[in-house]
């Protein structure tokens, strides 16, 4: 790790100010992605502004079916939230399978979404739940937020403060883990609204990061059943190919995970 300066912010406003006063700063949340990257000398921020002690960014609020999760909320807090489980258990299940206990007690939903790792789990949920990303300066829809591999719509210095969504009628997440990293080699989050609308997002597979699969959404909107998936083609040409999984294999996994998600929902 290169030398860096540490700052602890106690409010969102203070964090933004701190960031504007340093040359090459980075926000620090759980540090589960950022710190290893720094240790490998792949990132060299001049300053770290720690967001974990900002009370307004922590905590879970459920009001009826509307859910608000502070960006600094840990995966463990989401996984074990009784309030979220009552309205959207799929999200608790997703959070409970991120990394290991150490990672879940440190890593945060805001950090995961800001990082937008193409194999991360949360982006699939955020996109399929049609969530709103609340920042220090605006609100961004999930459809507009994820813009590419490790790329988001966030501006320089912009902080995610919370994630908001209305719980769907039913939802499920199915993850096929990479045997080495246990990140998603392909993960599918599916959500169905009372009006029959279906959103289905795929992580771990897209060569441009998390994406919605319109073909699967349409098929499931027409016929909400695992069998509906069978006749949908998943185009492998847009999918990642690497040591662990070819695009063709990932295309298969998208279909299988989608089918299983619908069955589990």
């Amino acid at each position, binding site marked *: *790790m*290169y*030398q860096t300066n540490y700052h602890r912010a106690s409010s969102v406003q203070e964090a933004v100010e701190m960031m504007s006063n340093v040359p090459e700063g980075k926000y620090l949340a759980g540090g589960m992605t950022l710190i290893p990257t720094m240790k*490998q*000398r792949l990132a060299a921020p001049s300053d770290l502004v720690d967001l974990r002690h900002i009370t307004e960014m922590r905590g879970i609020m459920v009001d009826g079916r509307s859910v608000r999760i502070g960006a600094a909320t840990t995966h463990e807090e989401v996984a074990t939230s009784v309030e979220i489980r009552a309205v959207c258990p799929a999200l608790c299940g997703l959070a409970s399978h991120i990394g290991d206990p150490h990672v879940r007690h440190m890593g945060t939903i805001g950090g995961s979404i800001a990082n937008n790792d193409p194999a991360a789990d949360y982006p699939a949920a955020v996109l399929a739940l049609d969530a709103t990303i609340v920042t220090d300066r605006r609100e961004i829809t999930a459809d507009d937020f994820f813009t590419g591999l490790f790329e988001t719509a966030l501006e320089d210095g912009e902080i995610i403060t919370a994630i908001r969504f209305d719980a769907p009628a039913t939802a499920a997440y199915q993850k*096929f883990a990479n*045997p*080495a*990293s246990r*990140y998603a080699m392909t993960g599918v989050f599916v959500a169905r609204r009372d009006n029959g609308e279906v959103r289905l997002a795929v992580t771990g597979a897209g060569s441009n990061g998390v994406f919605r699969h319109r073909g699967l959404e349409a098929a499931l909107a027409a016929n909400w059943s695992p069998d509906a998936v069978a006749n949908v083609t998943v185009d492998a040409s847009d999918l990642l190919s690497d*040591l*662990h*999984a*070819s695009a063709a*294999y990932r295309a*298969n*996994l998208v279909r*299988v995970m989608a089918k299983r998600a619908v069955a589990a929902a």
Partner: protein
Amino acid sequence: MGVEGIGARVARKEDKRFLTGKGRYTDDMTVPGMKYAVFVRSPHAHARITGLEKTAAAAMPGVIDVLDGQQLLADGIGNLICGWMIHSRDGSPMKMGAWRPLANKTVRYVGDAVAIVVADSVAAARDAAEAVVVDYEPLPVVTDPVKALEAGQPQIHPEAPGNLIFDWELGDAAAADQAIAGAAHVTEMKIFNNRLSPNPMEPRSTLGIYDPGDDHYTCYTTSQNPHLARLVMSAFYNVAPENKLRVVAPDVGGGFGSKIYIYPEEIVCLWASKRTGVPVKWTSDRTEAFLTDAHGRDHVSTVKMAFDGNSRITALKVDTIANLGAYMSLFSSAVPTYLYATLLSGQYDIPAIHANVRTVYTNTAPVDAYRGAGRPEATYLLERTMETAARELGISPAELRRINFIRSFPHQTPVIMNYDAGDYDASLNAAMAAADWDGFAARKAEAEQRGMKRGIGMSCYIEACGIAPSAAVGSLGAGVGLWESAEVRVNAVGTIEVMTGSHSHGQGHETTFAQLVADRLGVPIDSVNIVHGDTDKVQMGMGTYGSRSGAVGMSAIVKALDKVEAKAKKIAAHLMEADENDVVVENGELKVAGTDRSVPWSQVALAAYTAHNLPAGMEPGLKEGAFYDPANFTFPAGCYICEVEVDPETGQTKIVQFVAADDFGNIINPMIVEGQVHGGLAQGIGQALLEGVHYDPESGQLLTASYMDYAMPRADDLPSFNVSTSNTPCPNNPLGIKGCGEAGAIGSPPALINAITDAIGHNTLTMPATPQKVWAVANAAN
């Protein structure tokens, strides 16, 4: 057997230290004035060094010095060597390319060391290492061993034309060919044995200390054999003469073979300590470990197995290409030859065997012994072929094995080995009963209902351990003898220290060796200390690998104990005015048999050291040493059965049961033996299902350089193992021990792959059987 003696499940003495964080590993060692080293490593797989600029780096804050390969050469430090001479079938010696501890002209794999930076802190050293400017002229790269032998490929060492190190054979080619020509059936296969990274929990580390006052060096290092390290560094690398070099391997957190070898870092840190005048410590990070720890396996083979009309094997013919990487590591030449082809008879009576092995250089990390070393490769090849043959011949895999089992001992195979004892039916029967083999069809049908494909597979392995009779290995090319030494020091108060040349790095010697002493002398285990790992304390030793510490290391202790006991009996007889032939050792006392006369052990010890009243002419003291040279290898064997369920939609394999029935000879501590089997199985299952080193074939970059891409087995990848033993004592050593350290890793991969190929009904599958591969093969089979 007493509660602490041979055969007891004594809790490990060393675990208190390990489990409470009180272990002392090399990286824990701190000495006054100590500084930290970081190596500058090649980012290229193959390149010529055309320049090295280090002035700016050396001037950075906290930097003491930056030393390079030219300086190392100028100071006369020698090349790293391979210590086992193999001759090609044309009689020519193996073609060993020069391996400089710091490359000065050419780098040959990503991670090859070119310079060392010594600084006040690791961070300062790393900063400076990044500032060292090395000019490289990249050369073409080859990583695939088969391709490396083709015409027109990059030439890696001038000493080895066409990258061929040796072209060696064992056995009778004409006899094998003739039997194959006249066979009723021939099974042919192409077998890949995947390259593995050893991944000990503790990364390699070394601390070099030069003392100018005495012109003396001390090397703390993560070694499985500190004496061998001293011998090689003194005799070949010109670091220092043996009397001026102390090597200490303190607590070592796992080795699996990778810490047998002497690596460049040990040599360079010692040299750098003299050059800079400060003690120099280096500890590998995980990425360096992936890049530079010697890898294992990496064979490509073709095999022909011939059968007569009664399904009896008449011949085996094997052609293997073994990748040794960019340089020949210390035992690299022995692994694919005498530790591999000599085991190709397996548990079977095979009249004719011929093996041809070609070893090649590639632009990859050096390859050497890794848990099992050659024997897993032989077992995998043989047991995959047996399974395939059973399928082709339409008989059950168990039946085919039974038809061919060796049943009379000693048995001379056509490939050097003389098996001394075994009962292969016993372990096969035990494993099949434990696995409820006969109930498999019903379980398969039930799984089918759930949409899962269930398969079962077996593997009957044999290995040669206790490495090995010195004269025999010497005649085969070994540069060292493979005996072991021990010294038993009885203190004046009767407590005992045992100095052993074996080295424990997870095996539990401090417990099992003490159990032996407690058993022999009837003294409490806590009064016995096992001392190992320091060339100043133990005179000489050959270290721990090849499951040899029980069979060879403990046999040396037995010999030393015999001498101690003989002298103690003489003293006791003198004290009790009895005949020494009537004295027996029992429960910590020396007794006159059949009487109530006795003296406690402690009193005999005290008498030996006060020397007031010893038999006439006897020297004072009670301390004896012994060297034990084994008469033969030992031959642990067993049968493993694996049952899996494959999800046809994803290719995911779940191991639903794993049975291991082993014959390890006599057992000192069943709990420790079970632990060794569990660990070995985890590694074997890791190889079969998850692990694999991958290099980019064009650039030679290591693609699996972290746990993000290199899949290690985790607890939830593994079932609860069903392990048992049915033992035939080894007739060739005093304790009847065969060894158990490697069996799990040797026997398990073919059982697992046989089970998966059974499940998916398709035989072409390579390790690791990742979900993607299994899915692709299963779907191609439709």
